[in-house]
């Protein structure tokens, strides 16, 4: 089974409202590309500033790492960025630092409208980016490759990811898909203010590729606050929790898992299938997505031998 087919399947499971976002992103990207072509010609950038962790990871993966001169304050991967200048984050980009780095390409997030306007006034070329679905990750990789003059490496990376994802999908194919509650945030130590992945977005796609079925498939949003009652009613076979940020000790993880004992009727709780995963690879839609999907698949299908790279 080819990767394209897999992604089409992913696409089919999505509700019809989501292409709006993805389409908008593509349009923005297209618009930015047209502006760039018109204004400056298709010059290959030599000094790139990346504001968003996923983009930084993509740039390094496609061999554009040596051209990156500044990265976002929350970026942690790959290790090579340790000594690069930091230019703020999603809500507080530092325009002065960015301009002082004399970039010839900046990759901001689509919602950073002020930053985009200021950089536009400064005449700095832009590539606008926004999170979307899993297939958007591959599109972004290829587009960034074209834009930075690393098209061939980008194509290799994208094909590699497609192949790896296809291999995982192959490994779990034929298995019953456990109905899974994918928890993306909640208050520490309790089940309060719990947010779960809805029926769209790259985390929902990761869950499907890893051989799971989202209990909130029908929900249109990417993240939804769900109540205790909704969870009880959904009765998931597996509870999969992802937490980015600081690593938790095994004791802390055990304590967070134990919180679910409050809902003893959940099949996931009764069968001891509450899994708590930490790490940024689970929440950043970049090249490490394969790693994330592998970890999801391992949690959902512990008896399956997964391909290793």
């Amino acid at each position, binding site marked *: 089974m080819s990767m394209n087919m897999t992604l089409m399947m992913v696409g089919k499971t999505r509700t019809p409202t989501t292409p709006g976002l993805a389409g908008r992103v593509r349009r923005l990207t297209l618009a930015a590309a047209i502006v760039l072509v018109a204004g400056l010609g298709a010059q290959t950038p030599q000094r790139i500033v990346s504001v968003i962790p996923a983009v930084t990871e993509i740039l390094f993966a496609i061999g554009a790492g040596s051209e990156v001169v500044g990265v976002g304050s929350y970026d942690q991967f790959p290790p090579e960025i340790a000594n690069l200048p930091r230019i703020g984050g999603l809500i507080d980009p530092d325009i002065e630092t960015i301009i002082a780095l004399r970039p010839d390409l900046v990759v901001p997030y689509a919602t950073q409208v002020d930053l985009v306007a200021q950089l536009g006034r400064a005449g700095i070329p832009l590539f606008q980016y926004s999170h979307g679905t899993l297939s958007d990750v591959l599109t972004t990789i290829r587009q960034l490759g074209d834009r930075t003059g690393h098209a061939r490496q980008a194509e290799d990376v994208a094909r590699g990811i497609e192949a790896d994802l296809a291999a995982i999908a192959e490994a779990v194919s034929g298995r019953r898909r456990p109905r899974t509650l994918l928890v993306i945030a909640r208050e*520490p130590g309790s*089940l309060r203010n719990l947010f779960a992945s809805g029926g769209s977005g790259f985390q929902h796609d990761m869950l499907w590729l890893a051989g799971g079925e989202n209990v909130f498939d029908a929900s249109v949003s990417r993240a939804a606050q769900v109540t*205790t009652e909704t969870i009880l009613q959904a*009765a998931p076979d597996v509870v999969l929790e992802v937490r*980015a940020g600081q690593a938790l000790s095994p004791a802390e993880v055990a304590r967070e898992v134990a919180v679910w004992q409050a809902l003893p009727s959940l099949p996931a709780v*009764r069968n001891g299938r509450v899994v708590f995963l930490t790490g940024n690879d689970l929440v950043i839609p970049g090249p490490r997505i394969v790693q994330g999907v592998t970890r999801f698949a391992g949690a959902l299908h512990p008896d399956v031998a997964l391909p290793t790279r």
Partner: protein
Amino acid sequence: MTDRPGPDASPAAHPPVPAGAGRTRSFSLRRRLTFTLAGFGGLALVSLLVAPLIGPTPIALGRVFDPAIPFADNVDAQIFFIARLPRALAGMLVGASLAVAGVVFQALLRNPLATPFTLGVSAGASLGAMLVITFGLPMAVAGVPAVPVASLIGSLAAAGIVYAMATLRRRGLSTTVLLLAGVTLNSFFSAIIMFVQYSADFAQTFQTVRWLMGNLDVSGFQPIIAALPLTGVAFVMFATLPRALNLLTLGRDSAAARGVDVLRTQRVAFLSASLATGAAVSLAGPIGFIGIVIPHLVRLLVGADHRIVMPASACLGAAFLVACDVVARTAMAPVELPVGVITALTGGPFFLWLLMRRP
């Protein structure tokens, strides 16, 4: 003593009675108190009984109370006893606490615009919650998770600071200083909150913003039991206040001349209202509007006597919040709306309408 009416003397026997004063209209405070409490208490009771029956999932009451089905297998019973009943109880506790705390703060500050959050208690609670969510401080105490513990500590710290400021400079308690210190502390804590949010990552910021909107989904009785002792102490203290608060509205001297220990009353009022607010906010986040709408609504309905206003506000606050929570969890199910949005959206216009129709 002959010129004063004895217990059996009819008012007409009293010499300087002008025309009209001889009528014996029935006015019994005890009866008023009984009727009002029966009415408002009934409302609260109905809300507690009805709310667990309403929800996005249809549940069969027969199954909920069927002893033949083990609890661990009985989803209907679990939805009833884990998801809905605790929510309704938490709503009652929080609604009653915030409403009475609003009454007490308004009387203490002699300011009808005061709310339970005016003196910085909620800002302190928010800061505490935010610090735990952002920095993951391990503050869990005896099985109570870290966020409520930290928000309670934050609220009591804020109350302590405001109280110290209002009493430090001179003997007695200056309500003006109390108000100014509270408002200042509110903005000061808000600034720290913004600073903490600024240095938090996106997911944490989102979590804290959501906490600030208030939420009653306590998923079990344990958080309620944890908040109960503090709330209990606060309500016992509330019970000693009504008469003194009535007299305090006449002024400090008038109250003191009628045997009220003004400073002690102010202390008890401040402490109990802060305690109730802190416990409520640590249980459900800072749910707005109840602390101002309910007391005024009750006063419009039953007058200003705190002996009636306080229990009536407790009952109406409880019923109102439970009702708002039903809307919050069913209106857009399975997604939950912030209950603070519902309290403001329903309470606000209703309150304005009441103000407009007042003669």
